[in-house]
């Protein structure tokens, strides 16, 4: 049966009558900023890192991979804002380009892992019964692998490099997302409009995508921001171990490898700034996610 079915009670997306006040995107953003100053700080950090990553070519004063053997392990100065590393590469430029790597890996893994988890979680809750049980037991098994351990095992199979790292981080994120989404979707399955949609003869795919998925968006988006942070941390860890992104691609974790420890006392800036970049970025995503949770889920407010 098509959408133009002759039913008076054809299901409407709940958002249409649930939201009383309609605001423009700008007004919503300003409202968020006023209510969540800490979250706004997080959003600002995320935006700055995002802009830096997108326009790395414009912001970085030097080529991130070119060596300058006349300026090795130079302290921060006006020519080299954050100093240079043991190969004479400008640390500031490498951090700016590293932002791109971190965001590519972070967003790709979080979005792909998140969406697969979203669909699996909602479908699991919607179908229920035996398929739900089998899927959940499988998720239990996947959850028994700590993220970094699973990622390392996958890297040992497919090898290193940006693409493989994305795969390695995406897979362990799937069950974590599916679990949370399923628990949010379970009560929605019992809501009358889902029954109504079924009575209209809509297919499973349509009910899942049009009627259930939009209603688990709040917990999903909150989780997605946390996932980006987690993925960036995981990428940095893998790269630090030499099992993630490989030279010469600039990556924060990679910058902490080798030279950082060797020159710990003579050139501590090699170790300090890339780590600070990782921390600030993950910090930003966490603050933003927390504020988003408070804004989207009134039950959790005031905690």
């Amino acid at each position, binding site marked *: 049966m098509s959408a133009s079915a002759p039913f008076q009670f054809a299901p409407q997306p709940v958002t249409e009558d649930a939201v009383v006040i309609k605001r423009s995107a700008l007004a919503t953003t300003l409202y968020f900023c006023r209510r969540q100053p800490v979250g706004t700080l997080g959003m600002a950090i995320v935006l700055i890192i995002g802009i830096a990553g997108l326009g790395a070519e414009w912001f970085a004063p030097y080529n991130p991979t070119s060596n300058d053997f006349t300026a090795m392990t130079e302290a921060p100065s006006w020519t080299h804002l954050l100093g240079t590393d043991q190969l004479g590469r400008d640390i500031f430029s490498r951090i700016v380009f590293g932002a791109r790597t971190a965001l590519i890996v972070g967003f790709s893994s979080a979005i792909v892992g998140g969406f697969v988890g979203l669909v699996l979680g909602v479908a699991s809750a919607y179908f229920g019964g035996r398929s739900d049980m089998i899927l959940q*037991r*499988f998720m*239990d*098994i*996947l959850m*028994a*692998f*700590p*993220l*970094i*351990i699973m990622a*390392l*095992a*996958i*890297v*040992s*199979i*497919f090898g290193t490099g940006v693409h493989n790292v994305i795969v390695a981080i995406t897979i362990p994120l799937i069950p974590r997302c599916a679990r949370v989404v399923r628990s949010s979707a379970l009560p929605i399955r019992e809501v009358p409009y889902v029954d109504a949609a079924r009575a209209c003869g809509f297919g499973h795919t349509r009910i899942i995508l049009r009627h259930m998925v939009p209603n688990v968006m709040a917990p999903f988006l909150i989780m997605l921001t946390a996932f980006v*942070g987690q993925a960036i*941390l995981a990428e*940095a*860890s893998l790269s*630090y*171990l*030499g*099992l993630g992104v490989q030279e010469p691609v600039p990556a924060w*974790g990679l910058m*902490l490898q080798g030279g*950082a*420890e060797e020159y*710990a*006392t003579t050139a*501590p800036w090699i*170790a*300090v700034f*890339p*780590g600070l970049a*990782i*921390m*600030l*970025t*993950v*910090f930003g995503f*966490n*603050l933003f996610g*927390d504020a988003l949770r408070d804004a989207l889920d009134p039950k959790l407010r005031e*905690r």
Partner: protein
Amino acid sequence: MFRYIMTRVLAVIPTLIGAATLVFILMRLIPGDICVVRLGSGGGSFSEHSVQMCHAELGIDRPMIVQFAEFIWGLFTLNLGNSMWSGKPVVLEIAARLPISLEIALLAAIVAIVIAIPLGTISALKQNTWLDLVVRTFAIAGIATPSFWLGILSIIMVLDVTQAITGTPWMPPIDYVPLWKDPIRNLSMTLLPAITVGYRYAAVSMRMTRSTMLEVMREDYIRTARAKGLLAKIIINRHALKNALLPVVTLLGIEFAFLIGGLVVTEQVFNLNGIGRLFVLAVQNQDYTLTQALVMLVVAIFVLTNLVVDLLYAWLDPRIRFA
């Protein structure tokens, strides 16, 4: 209670077998022939015969089902074959390195709990004061800080401080001595990594303690206790904390896995010869027998920790025990 324990213990078995199956399949997904990859990695040429020898040695010339049965049986009997890289039995390789990793993990957990529960409670009781703000910032920073970076920074700090005081930088001992033999030497080696890797653990538990404490403090029975005129100390310790800690216990179990994951990276920073470092070496050397054994070890630790947590939970919360 007995029934609950039995069902919970039995539920562990399918998870472990499932995980073992997954590891077995994953390790067979490796593109190409492991033996060709290994023999060819040196750059030299190799004969067809050496490839077959390698197949026979690893047992991958037999049917899949036989290999799988052998793998599962090996897990039960702790006979996991030899390391493809050192040639020594995998079990021995792991056993030699397990004590130091376990010690750091337990030490980290203790440090984290000792810090997290009091700070989380104070933060909740003094909600929205500067103290609360400091604790919350400390906590959220703990989740964002990569443990390996914290490790590098703490090494730099120790080197600089000892250099300034004594004139020569102090380095922690390299060889592992058990705690009961030489506690000072042992702790000088393990305490710093434990704090580094435990920071995140502490941060997560702190946030959880704070949020459950806030929730519990609003309950009616707390108001009743206050109305009865009980001392604040008794209300907090006996009435509030006991209930607030239940979700924290669960979280501690789940986060223990993160702790083990963090150990993989932290051991690298501090140059400690534990299972985390062994894991990285196994992956780098494409030592699949060792990798699969280590993955299974971590999974087993994780599953068993959560079993203990669940049982503890049932003991703490009668509603589960009698449900």
